[in-house]
């Protein structure tokens, strides 16, 4: 159950009072000397932020997203609640009346959150009353706790992090370049805040502007600490500008009921860091022991830790977790929705944090000319003039995003008058009754045998509307088949109502994974909602079990000889992408690649340049789940790039490219023979296409869409996509000479992915499987061989694989007798043997001609008006050359029958037998050249 559900999804319980808050800042303009490829501070922050999204604690506001706006301004989106402890300060009369038990509850929850942050290597360093929020149930929710972490301890930004008023001495007087802040910093802040709330008096005298006085007091505190054991007992403390009320409380001796509280605050306010407790330690302070004997407050009762991640066993006790508890008729559409999802829909509904904030006038945008520094360095490092543009510094103002419009849009989308989307799943089934469909064949074959991978073979679903489409891929012209999914993919992806329904559907299916895998694949054929893409891909690939343990089991740190290569490639891999260009992203990609190599050492797979690109989509989609990214890659490669990464992959690649060339001849003979004539061979441009499954060709956004279909399509789909790309550029290519092809070897900004996939599928449908057969394909069994060949079976000459060098030089593919028979009346069989041989026996309805006389008979062959042209000869004859001639003469779908006449005699297929009629008609008028046609019907 719930294999891919995260804690966040399980605990999603959106309440009315939750808001999406935003604050904004900019990183330091430019950090010098960051090696060859300068990772800007912005990118660093962007990368570090990602881990914050995974944090989950009942007392922490969730981080939702980071957005990079204009001028590298960053916007951080997070969970926000309207109430915060700072409000208590404004009504100071009330403060001191708060009971100790309330303070205890707050202190406990804050410490719990801080301890959790510490466990995750995060120091808050920014704790202040106004960012200690609480929700409608009074539960504490810390906000802004990630700023110090994401900015690498403040190194990446020009503003200080933390409020000096609440910071301990060591946070101010820390040694330069030694940002060793620990959770103990936050313990001090907590002490100050609680003392203030209890006494109703600010800790430090004077106002916030008086920063120098504050700093000197903190300095003195630190100085004196060295000579004093407990500084709060000393007299000099009264000279530091700490409010009397605070000191009276700290030094007090009476009031037994607050003695534990006082001890607790004094423990928080230990000036010497080594004596101060960590948040974790403080949780066992006597102050709490009476109330929380078991270390748990009431607020943790309904909080679930991911209890069954990656478990495939159904645990019925957990079942109730997913059942809607209350089914009120008017419940909020956002109810129980994870915040990240709400934010995603908010964006789809037209939301944009930058314009939102600009609209409200919160972004002070300085005109570019004003941003030019007008600072002049004068003597002694002093600067004169306008120093900085403060508009880009941090402001702790939090803006809330209005969810009103989103609610309205979603209510319409889910209401009774909602738009009904037809999720037609017949994407692969566009049957042209007047043409072949080998995908249907493949499915029925697999159903009969009941074997094989469950994904492959099920590319089709019953067609509810029985659409008829016109044929495509005959002689150069492609008519993209009409598809009855109403809107273009791009529009569907931007439609909030549509995406809402898709996300709901897939979320539910993912919860039931792996049992729901077939259904996921079924629906994924229509489209994949981008919000869940990473997990849906994993489900389609069949990732299951404890993938984290699998990932952990491989050594990723061992030095190998490939390290240098990986190190130079990783910082060049899709660097336009914010995640992949961040230092964290580089680390992750490096680890993934090293893990892949470690995991495949036994399979003899190695790192080839290009593997980095291939890895990129999985990493960007699962940035916070490296193990899942790895498992996706690990299951993907054997299915779609089998043996491509062998240290000697040349037989595999050579064969792949040869088949690619055959396919091009098969579907576009004119283009194929043109490229062949000018010498522009697939080896020159297509290696990177297939080695990286197009990730090195297209930007990630296009790759996602391409892979959405590759993952649910037949394994040969990439070959057809390659042909679609060539055919989209056909007009340009057909006019090009070799030297003009240079524009072609770059990227393809104009290639339309959706059209590309449609055309690839329509070609795939009409292509007999034997035409694309490869010795190196996964689970290869040539279908010239019968299943379950007995051991004593003598291998026939045509059953031996064609030597790769022959395959490479041939322009047209081979076809098996089995497939030929299926072509029935769509095919013209051209027999090139002698007249005597022909009359002794031939394929029914075939024509017989002298292969050297093609020019003369081309017209007659065209008049036959067949979709397929199969050359039949005998062993070692000119069949392949003649087939190449047919291709050059622009005959579509040309192939050579594997085994020629011999296969018909020895291994007859059901439904066809050698015809020995002498009932020929001659196609030749002058009688010098021979052209005969068998007139016997099937």
């Amino acid at each position, binding site marked *: 159950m719930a294999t891919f559900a995260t804690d966040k999804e399980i605990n999603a319980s959106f309440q009315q009072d939750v808001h999406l808050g935003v604050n904004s800042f900019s990183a330091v303009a430019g950090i010098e000397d960051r090696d060859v490829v300068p990772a800007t501070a912005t990118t660093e922050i962007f990368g570090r932020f990602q881990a914050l999204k995974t944090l989950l604690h009942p007392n922490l506001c969730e981080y939702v997203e980071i957005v990079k706006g204009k001028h590298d301004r960053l916007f951080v989106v997070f969970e926000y609640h309207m109430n915060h402890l700072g409000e208590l300060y404004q009504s100071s009369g009330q403060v001191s009346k708060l009971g100790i038990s309330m303070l205890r509850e707050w202190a406990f929850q804050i410490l719990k959150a801080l301890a959790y942050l510490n466990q995750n290597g995060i120091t808050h360093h920014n704790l202040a009353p106004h960012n200690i929020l609480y929700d409608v149930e009074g539960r504490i929710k810390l906000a802004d706790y990630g700023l110090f972490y994401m900015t690498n301890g403040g190194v990446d930004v020009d503003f200080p992090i933390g409020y000096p008023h609440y910071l301990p001495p060591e946070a101010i007087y820390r040694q330069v370049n030694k940002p060793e802040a620990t959770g103990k910093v936050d313990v001090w802040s907590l002490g100050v805040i609680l003392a203030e709330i209890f006494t109703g008096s600010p800790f430090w005298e004077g106002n916030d502007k008086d920063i120098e006085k504050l700093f000197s007091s903190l300095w003195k505190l630190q100085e004196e600490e060295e000579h004093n054991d407990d500084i709060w007992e000393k007299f000099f403390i009264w000279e530091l500008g700490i409010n009397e009320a605070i000191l009276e409380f700290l030094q007090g001796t009476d009031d037994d009921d607050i003695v534990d509280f006082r001890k607790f605050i004094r423990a928080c306010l230990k000036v010497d860091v080594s004596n101060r407790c960590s948040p974790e330690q403080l949780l066992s302070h006597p102050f709490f022991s009476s109330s929380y004997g078991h270390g748990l407050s009431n607020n943790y009762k309904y909080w679930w830790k991911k209890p069954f991640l990656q478990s495939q066993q159904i645990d019925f006790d957990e079942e109730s977790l997913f059942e809607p508890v209350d089914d009120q008729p008017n419940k909020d559409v956002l109810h129980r929705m994870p915040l990240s999802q709400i934010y995603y829909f908010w964006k789809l509904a037209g939301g944009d944090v930058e314009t939102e904030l600009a609209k409200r006038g919160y972004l002070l945008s300085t005109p570019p000319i004003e941003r030019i520094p007008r600072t002049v360095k004068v003597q002694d490092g002093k600067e004169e003039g306008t120093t900085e543009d403060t508009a880009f510094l941090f402001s702790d103002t939090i803006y809330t995003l209005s969810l009103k419009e989103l609610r309205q849009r979603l209510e319409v989308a889910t209401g009774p008058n909602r738009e009904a989307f037809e999720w037609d799943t017949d994407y692969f089934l566009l049957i042209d009754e007047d043409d072949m469909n080998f995908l249907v064949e493949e499915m029925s074959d697999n159903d009969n045998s009941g074997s094989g991978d469950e994904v492959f073979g099920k590319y089709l679903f019953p067609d509810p509307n029985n659409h008829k489409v016109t044929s495509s891929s005959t002689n150069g012209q492609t008519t993209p088949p009409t598809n009855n999914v109403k809107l273009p993919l791009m529009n569907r992806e931007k439609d909030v109502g549509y995406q809402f329904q898709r996300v709901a559907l897939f979320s539910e299916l993912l919860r039931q994974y792996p049992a729901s895998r077939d259904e996921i694949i079924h629906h994924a054929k229509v489209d994949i909602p981008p919000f869940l893409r990473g997990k849906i891909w994993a489900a389609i690939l069949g990732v299951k079990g404890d993938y984290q343990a699998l990932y952990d089991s491989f050594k990723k740190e061992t030095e190998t000889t490939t390290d240098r290569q990986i190190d*130079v490639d990783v910082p060049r891999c899709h*660097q336009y992408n914010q995640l992949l260009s961040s230092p964290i992203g580089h680390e992750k990609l490096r680890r993934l690649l090293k893990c892949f190599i470690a995991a495949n050492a036994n399979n003899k797979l190695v790192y*080839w340049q290009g593997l980095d690109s291939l890895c990129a989509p999985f990493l960007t989609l699962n940035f916070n789940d490296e193990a899942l990214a790895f498992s996706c890659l690990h299951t993907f490669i054997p299915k779609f790039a089998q043996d491509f990464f062998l240290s000697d992959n040349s037989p595999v690649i050579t064969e792949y490219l040869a088949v690619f060339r055959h396919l091009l001849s098969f579907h576009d003979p004119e283009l194929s023979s043109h490229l062949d004539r000018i010498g522009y*061979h697939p*080896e*020159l441009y297509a290696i990177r296409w297939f080695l990286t499954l197009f990730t090195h060709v297209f930007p990630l956004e296009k790759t996602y869409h391409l892979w959405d279909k590759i993952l649910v399509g037949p394994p040969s789909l990439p070959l057809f996509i390659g042909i679609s790309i060539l055919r989209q550029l056909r007009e340009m290519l057909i006019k090009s000479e070799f030297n003009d092809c240079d524009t072609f070897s770059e990227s393809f900004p104009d290639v339309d992915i959706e059209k590309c996939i449609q055309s690839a599928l329509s070609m795939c449908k009409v292509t007999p499987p034997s035409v694309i057969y490869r010795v190196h394909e996964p689970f290869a069994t040539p279908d010239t061989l019968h299943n379950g060949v007995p051991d004593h079976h003598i291998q026939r000459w045509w059953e031996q694989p064609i030597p790769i060098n022959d395959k490479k030089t041939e322009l047209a593919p081979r076809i098996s007798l089995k497939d030929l028979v299926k072509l029935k009346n769509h095919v013209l069989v051209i027999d090139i043997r002698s007249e005597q041989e022909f009359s002794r026996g031939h394929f029914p309805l075939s024509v017989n001609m002298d292969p050297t006389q093609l020019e003369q008979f081309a017209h007659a062959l065209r008049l036959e008006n067949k979709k397929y042209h199969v050359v039949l000869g005998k062993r070692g004859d000119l069949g392949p050359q003649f087939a190449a001639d047919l291709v050059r003469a622009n005959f579509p779908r040309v192939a050579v029958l594997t085994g020629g006449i011999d296969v018909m005699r020895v291994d007859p297929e059901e439904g066809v037998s050698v015809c020995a009629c002498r009932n020929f008609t001659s196609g030749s008028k002058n009688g010098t050249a021979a052209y005969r046609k068998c007139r016997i019907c099937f």
Partner: protein
Amino acid sequence: MSTTNNRQNAHASGKLYQFKLVLLGESAVGKSSLVLRFVKDQFDDYRESTIGAAFLTQTISLDDNTTVKFEIWDTAGQERYKSLAPMYYRNANCAVVVYDITQASSLDKAKSWVKELQRQADPNIVIALAGNKSDLSARRAIDSEEAQAYATDTGLLFFETSAKTAVNVNELFTSIAKKMPLEQLAANSRGRGSSSKQRGVDLTSPTSSNNCSC
């Protein structure tokens, strides 16, 4: 001067020579960046690695009467792709072997490429050695003098280049063009248009074949 202009000049007057040029060298030394600078006068900090090979052309004018067109084959630097290299340097008239002045090992790799070219490629091939990333002289690991001495000994053209700042990039390619035995090759160049076998990369013959078969 733009490529188009050159092409027109070539047609209007003088001679157009066409050469096949191959770039070789260790991974990430800046082969693709040199080509990008030469062909498009651009620089990209995050240039993706080259997989297999990439093909570009650029035309330069040597003087009013002479125009040279380079068919440039930019190869993948990873050692594993080495088996593909003969496909690209076979029939090449000239080669640029690139190293990175900040990476000591890259010069060794360059030297081994030079050896391979001298052994396997066309005996008349013109080879240039390019020490790229000269803008990063602060991190220099290879002395100019050392590389220059090696180039002189071996009979190579030598430049320290920077694809980033464009220093010496055009000079490198122009010098190669000037060093080509133009008259000798004129006959070949004329024949090339009609013979498809001579175009591009020879994929069929596994052994090194003679450049001139027309």
